[in-house]
């Protein structure tokens, strides 16, 4: 039986379901397109994990299992909307047109985010848990001041979406963001991917009631969606974004999902969780259910699936080669982007270090000790 407190529009078996408040706004072509997103996103993740194993990345935070939560919400955004991610929103990045290679360069340790947040509408990854929820709220307050909220012009009205995890809901910053968004009626959607774990800590270390209910205490709506159901996530996010754009204020969406992989490649989940849980959640796989739906009800055939598989293979090759080809930055570049207006003091520090480095070049053998 369906859980009345969980919005679901596509069952794990691939059957469409009805919900009194939410309906998926796309057609079967949209679903094909979402399926492609899901598969490619998963492939980015698999490839990155492999690259990390081969020593090409310092670390990788896998989104395995959370593809639908990310693609469903990311595809609900309009061009003028702005997303504030954590460090795991590779699927959302994909929907915003961020080249996955620039995600990889970050995890390789070449830079700390090289995409253009304004051009893509996708902020930089934020590692300090919860900090970005306040940035999102401030950005949303900026939209209000820019007069692009509640104008009734769909090309103009904009909203913000802030991503965070279940663990993050315990941070003061996130709760302050709830308060500010509520008090200022800011156009922001708080999108919590409850993947049941904050590294080794299960959700009961963060809350004793369902997370979506947190919103009611701050005076705005909260909703729990099946985070492995791309249609439900899309519908709920679209509705929340629309509310925000219209000037009706914030919404909390709890996407109920599961972190199928380790926290990051340095983590060992066998120390703290049972494999039975994983088996249970495998049955709810976000990609499989769309596959089943497309096969059974839309008549998608071999062609369709193999075309996407080929695209995924090609993407994987590009990522592999692109990662290996990445050049390390020069040490002197660290001085360049500290300030807009460089200080004489820092310039001197750079110059001294440059001279120091040059002294090795000048040495007869060019070698350090």
């Amino acid at each position, binding site marked *: 039986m369906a859980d009345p407190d969980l919005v679901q529009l596509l069952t794990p078996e691939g059957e469409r379901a009805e919900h009194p408040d939410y309906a998926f706004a796309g057609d079967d072509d949209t679903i094909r397109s979402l399926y492609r997103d899901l598969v490619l996103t998963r492939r980015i993740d698999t490839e990155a994990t492999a690259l990390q194993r081969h020593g090409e990345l310092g670390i990788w935070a896998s989104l395995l299992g959370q593809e639908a939560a990310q693609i469903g919400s990311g595809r609900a955004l309009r061009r003028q909307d702005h997303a504030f991610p954590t460090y795991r929103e590779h699927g959302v990045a994909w929907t915003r047109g961020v080249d996955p290679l620039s995600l990889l360069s970050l995890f390789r340790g070449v830079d*700390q985010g090289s995409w253009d*947040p304004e051009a893509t509408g996708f902020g930089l990854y934020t590692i300090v848990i919860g900090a970005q929820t306040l940035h999102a*709220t*401030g950005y949303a307050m900026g939209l209000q001041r820019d007069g692009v909220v509640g104008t009734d012009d769909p090309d103009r009205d904009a909203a913000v979406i802030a991503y965070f995890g279940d663990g993050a809901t315990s941070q003061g910053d996130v709760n302050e963001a709830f308060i500010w968004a509520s008090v200022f009626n800011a156009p922001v959607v708080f999108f919590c991917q409850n993947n049941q774990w904050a590294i080794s800590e299960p959700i009961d270390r963060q809350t004793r009631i369902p997370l979506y209910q947190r919103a009611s205490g701050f005076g705005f709506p909260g909703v729990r969606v099946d985070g492995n159901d791309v249609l439900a996530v899309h519908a709920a996010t679209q509705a929340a974004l629309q509310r925000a754009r219209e000037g009706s204020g914030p919404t909390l969406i709890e996407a109920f999902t599961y972190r199928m992989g380790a926290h990051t490649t340095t983590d060992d989940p066998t120390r703290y969780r049972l494999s039975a849980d994983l088996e249970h959640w495998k049955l709810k796989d976000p990609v499989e259910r769309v596959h089943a739906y497309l096969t059974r009800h839309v008549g998608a055939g071999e062609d369709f699936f193999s075309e996407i598989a080929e695209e995924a293979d090609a993407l994987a090759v590009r990522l592999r080669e692109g990662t290996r080809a990445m050049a390390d930055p020069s040490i002197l570049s660290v001085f360049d982007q500290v300030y807009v207006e460089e200080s004489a003091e820092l310039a001197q520090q750079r110059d001294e270090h440059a001279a120091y480095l040059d002294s090795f070049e000048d040495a007869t053998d060019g070698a350090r000790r």
Partner: protein
Amino acid sequence: MTTTMTMAKALNAGLRAAMEADPKVLMMGEDVGKLGGVFRITDGLQKDFGEDRVIDTPLAESAILGTAVGLAMRGYRPVCEIQFDGFVYPAYDQIVSQVAKIHFRSRGRMPMPIVIRIPFGGGIGAVEHHSESPEAQFAHTAGLKVVACSHPTDAYWMIQQAIAADDPVVFLEPKRQYHGEKAEVDTEATPPPLFTSRTVREGSDLTLLAYGPTVRLCRDAALAASEEGRSLEVIDLRTLSPLDLEPVFASVRRTGHAVVVHEAARSLGMGSEIAARIQQECFYALEAPVLRVAGFDTPYPPSRIEEEYLPDLDRVLDAVDRSLAY
């Protein structure tokens, strides 16, 4: 045009001028709107610029800075008022890990033109947390710039320059002097660049280094010393990060003696960095070690004894004596 102003009025006038000059400038903080701030520094601004530009915020410093980051990303120039020095710490994470680092993290794509105004220092008879001097912690943090004004004219110009700067600036206001000594402020003058120190008084025997609340103290000390036939040079550092020490080195090379004076605890206070730099740059010129007159390495005391705790004329002159007698 010159107007006689207290530092509080000068800051108020500077903020007003900045808001007039650029519609992207916002004020935000606790009680900055209707009340005009507990020190009235933003007095009248909400009335004239509206609630969207002068924002009375919820009581949450981390959020004041965190939302300022988001507003800055959207092209605004938020000026955040922290009500008292001791209340900046809930925002510390947003300041050191976000405000300070986002320009670097984004490889220059996202400037953070945020000004963090902090009334700082002691001497106003307040309860705990209202008399702190947190500057060294910010000056240690790469990505921030830190300045302190010491009199009305600087206050008027420096606040406008800080707001116009594209980097985040921690702007320290010596609260004890808000309603103190007035000055003739020429609002049409051309101010010196923001990130420069300035010689307040010339002298040849010893160099006194100060900023914010201790500038006046050092001026007074130089005056007192001159009566004893000693010629002290007083430099107002004005900028704590970056430091503008070339004029200081030049001075110490002439005088051979230096004393740094601040209210913050001595250990790891600004005086430590300045002493370290002077001994490095003026090694052969120094005739005595660089001495420091500072707050003790204790929490700020109950207010009834704060005047005994804070650096005062006697302690400064005592350090001068010790340096010259070295």
